[in-house]
């Protein structure tokens, strides 16, 4: 049905631990119309999976299914060797979507504090330093409505940085970012993977992929 191919760009050493994310036979249809699938792939800790494909092939839908925002028609999603449940997902997955989830009437720091209160945050990380890491130092008291699209993206990245979840699902993380911002995403993904996390990134173009162990998933339109 669908010509989705998964292959390894690098050759990672075999590990005995279950992959952080394992997907088998995942299929999704909207109104009887197949969107993607069946898909099979796995992402180990310390790996990034680059999901590529043209507009409309279902990259965002795939990420939303993995995050649990949409229900798959068929297939299994395992997180760390266990079947993905809502609670497991909530603790294992951090999702960066197209919508920034920022309140226009709150300042950058207040937004970040709220999202940290909602999702919890890593030990030894505070919103203030996360803002400095993403290059928003000095914008703490700026209302979110006054931030540019790229700055909002950076603020979302700061939220991701604070999240304790090991698996990042990044939908078009490079969108709206300048060259330095793209490097920032790559550096953050690199650091996250070094700490034993994993990341899924969707892109439609040839962006500079993060210099890490990367698998590729090329999605194509169902025939």
């Amino acid at each position, binding site marked *: 049905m669908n010509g989705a191919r998964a292959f390894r760009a690098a050759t990672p050493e075999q590990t005995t631990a279950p992959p952080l994310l394992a997907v088998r036979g995942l299929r999704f249809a909207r109104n009887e119309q197949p969107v993607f699938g069946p898909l099979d792939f796995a992402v180990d800790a310390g790996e990034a999976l680059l999901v590529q494909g043209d507009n409309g092939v279902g990259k965002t839908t795939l990420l939303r299914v993995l995050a649990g925002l949409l*229900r798959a028609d068929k297939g299994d999603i395992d997180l760390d060797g266990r079947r993905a449940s809502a609670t497991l*997902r909530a603790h294992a997955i951090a999702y960066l979507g197209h919508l920034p989830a920022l309140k226009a009437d709150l300042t950058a720091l207040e937004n970040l504090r709220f999202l940290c209160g909602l999702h919890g945050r890593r030990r030894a990380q505070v919103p203030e330093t996360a803002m400095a890491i993403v290059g928003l130092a000095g914008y703490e008291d700026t209302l979110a409505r006054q931030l540019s699209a790229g700055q909002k993206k950076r603020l979302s990245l700061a939220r991701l940085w604070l999240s304790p979840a090991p698996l990042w699902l990044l939908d078009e993380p490079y969108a709206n970012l300048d060259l330095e911002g793209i490097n920032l995403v790559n550096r953050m993904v690199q650091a996250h993977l070094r700490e034993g996390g994993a990341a899924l990134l969707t892109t439609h173009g040839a962006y500079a992929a993060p210099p890490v162990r990367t698998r590729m998933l090329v999605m194509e339109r169902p025939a």
Partner: protein
Amino acid sequence: MMASAARALLARDLRMLWRRRGDSLQPALFALLVVVLFALALGAEPQALAKVAPAVLWLAVLLAGLLALDTLFRGDAEDGSLEQWMLAPVPLWWLVLVRTFMHWGSSALPLLVATPFLGELLHLPHEQLPVLLASLALGTPLLSLLGAVVAALTVGMRRSGILVALLALPLYVPVLVFGAGSVAAAAQGLDPTGALLLLAAGLVVALVLAPLAAAAAIRIALS
């Protein structure tokens, strides 16, 4: 975890209420307007006014809550906040409950406090005031909870406008009947306990079921 998420959400909502205090005051001002207009229209006949006072106060509070209903989840749906709520490690129904509590606190609670003064304006007999306050204290949270389900059902629509009111009214009618009815019974020297207990029972049932129903509706609306 649940407590910290609730604290974060309450702090966020209180901040936003304060930042947009003009908008936040609208429901209370609307209720005041209704009461004042009734007082002016029937001003020459204190007897007639005293007779309809409980019903007018109940209607004013109900309509004020209805006015604020459409904004309950809409803003959070549009900027992607609801997506993050769904992915948070706390149950969605808990966040819905906290948000609904804020709706009650911002639209009904100020009016509850003002009821003695508004009652004075309408020549409400003093002996009816405790029953009226009790019925409002039990009935308004019930209205907010029922309204949350309706708001959640319509959150996927671009502009729901009058639809929210149309959907909410049949659910609101029993509450209004028993709420205003308890005061009417007290006015006739009957025992209002029965109606108040029914309101209390309804509140308990809605406290348990409404957040679950609203959370399910939000999940459907956003998928």
